[in-house]
């Protein structure tokens, strides 16, 4: 593996606190994911992509923004791998770069919907911006 990609993968493992080698490739994460239909990369691939250092691809993927952080995959993974934590780490890596916020205050007015609780917006900010 290239040194840069190795470092990237190591960083993701460090931030997420996961051990990607524990994955036994059963696919229960993908089976559990309620946001699967919106994703371009399936949850079970997150783990092997980190294992193979394909972090750039993950950072550019739609999936990291579609993950609802419901933690169904974490709850049901029989090996304790925590795919959602991996995605959270990738998302944070993207957001931490300058001007990379996924959600900006100016986007809010168009998103406002009386059905969405205020708290959801607050947590969306926490999740999607620096």
């Amino acid at each position: 593996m290239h040194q840069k990609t190795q470092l990237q993968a190591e960083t993701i493992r460090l931030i997420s606190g996961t051990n990607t080698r524990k994955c036994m490739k059963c696919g229960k994460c993908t089976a559990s994911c309620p946001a699967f239909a919106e994703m371009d990369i399936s949850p079970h691939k997150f783990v092997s992509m980190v294992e193979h250092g394909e972090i750039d691809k993950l950072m550019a993927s739609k999936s990291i923004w579609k993950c609802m952080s419901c933690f169904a995959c974490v709850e049901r993974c029989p090996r304790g791998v925590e795919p959602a934590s991996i995605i959270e780490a990738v998302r944070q890596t993207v957001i931490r770069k300058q001007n990379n916020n996924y959600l900006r205050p100016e986007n809010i007015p168009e998103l406002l919907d009386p059905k969405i609780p205020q708290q959801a917006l607050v947590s969306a900010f926490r999740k999607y911006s620096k």
Partner: protein
Amino acid sequence: MQRIGVFVCWCGTNIAATVDIDTVVEAMKYEPGVVHASDYQYMCSEAGQSKIKQAIKEHNLTGIVVCACSPRMHETTFRKAAKAAGLNQYMVEIANIREHCAWIHKDRKEATEKAVVLARTAVAKLNLNTPLTPGESSVVKRALVIGGGIAGIQSALDIAEAGYEVDIVEKQPTIGGKMAQLDKTFPTLDCAACILTPKMVDAASHENINLYTYSEVDSVGGFVGNFNVKIRKKARSVKADICSGCGICTEKCPSRKAENEFNLGLNKRGAIYIPFAQAIPNVPVIDRDQCIKFKTGKCGLCAKVCPADAIDFSQQDEIVEKQYGAVVLATGFNPIKLDNFDEFGYSQSKDVITSLELERIMNAAGPTGGKLLRPSDNGHPHTMVFVQCVGSRDTTGCGKTYCSKICCMYTAKHAMLIREKYPDVDVHVFYIDVRTPGKNFDEFYRRAAEDYGVNYIKGMVGKVAPTNGKLLVQGSDLIADRQLVIEADMVVLATAIEPDQTAKSLATMLTASIDTNNFFTEAHPKLRPVESPTAGVFLSGVCQGPKDIPETVAQASAAAVKVIGLLSKDKLMCNPCVANSNELLCNGCSNCQHVCPYGAIDYVEKEFRAGGKTSLRRVAQVNEAICQGCGACTVVCPSGAMDLKGFTNQQIMAEVDAICR
């Protein structure tokens, strides 16, 4: 002063690659008591052994130290060699410089230094060794088999055939175990009852086999060759000797609320019941928690209708005390509880069942008469989903870390049988890996997929949602990289298996060890797979680890062979490395008696004369036949009166001194 010979083994390159043999040999030459030191490539070989024998004679050695592999491996070999050369076999010490040194170190210099320390430690101990003579104990020519499933039955039959008496203790009212509940058996698809019930009859009618059903082991004392066991025969409330097994009582019993355990709760049974038609013995038992007579005092209908007058409401538990030379553990397994796996909807829908429940549904003698019916409405299912690895291979603590081994095959069997009988039913199997090692096993699984059109999906089920009378199964198809939702009528969970819970208490009673999953541990995972580390205790069937019927039967017979080998001896050699108490130092505190796991220590009142006076004191005495030489008593003895032959306090201190030198 001892005359010690030190022999350093290379073990090919196993030791020699990491430890500098010459340095060790050279260092040993200057150790106190050592008169000879040499090395050889394979000390355990015939040539190596004769070098030792020759040296013993040539240098008139009084003891030898062999620096080689673990004593578990070759201590017996070198003891025999020493004995052949005229030495007492307990004048042999092993310095483990392979497992404890060469194999675990990389640095040659450090490993060599450690090997020298280990060798001189053994020399220091040997300097204080005294010749020991093993005693003898007798062997009771009778075996106890705990568990009356196929494992226990097979072990008992083989032991009985060799001419020894065998008692089977089974906690259920009938023998037969889990196999009696199965429908067909893989890979040949013969019916389980057809091949099991003749064996049950054989066991019951064998003149050397005695069945204790509806009974449990209460306590175990003694040791190999002389186990003393108390068996609790639970009150059946039916006189077994006069009951004719006509079954009228079971038909007339007005209580119908109890869950039928044999059918895994899929239907009800009476308070007085026979588990299944071919049960052995064919004698009913009253479930006192369900019986109206026991609950309210009224009823007693069974007693009125019994033509043999066999009902006895006043029956009490009976304790039988018996001696055995050997014990076979065959306590079997159960499917795990699914409380931690809510996602599969087992508690929410009757149509989500375990594989063992499906066995009962498919069984002609089962609750549906062998018809595949949906439990919720007795309708015919059109789509069935099987989920593999439910609770197996789970490291999160919700399930079991191990592979339950039998599920891949029985799921293929279920899928195939359903497709054979009901070709209109779509069968989907979600799998993580299909594991089918075994004779004709992979061919069997492929037949399910290729000839019977069972849809195998590489992936896992994430969720089963009962919706509008159907089960929405959301799973992954990893080959197609998609998420599936299947509308199913029934979902079958290949539930992990775990050892029966009695394993734990029996392990304590017998001082047999169990692993973190409560499976009994074998004496050696490869070379002694049917013996427990406790002498005289043998393992048969799933209580040792997950296995299918062919393997269980093979292991059961293997355990029987070991039992027969033991029972065929008239005398057993006892380990002479046992505790002994110095009565002059003993202060009678009883600490040793409390910690002794074998009950080998008794206290006696003894007269002592000192300074012209006679006094009466309580002192410890060790029963050498029972003592296993664990040394627990020597540690707790506050006055230093208790010591272990072959491992005296003095010897241990000499070893510590040698390490610290």
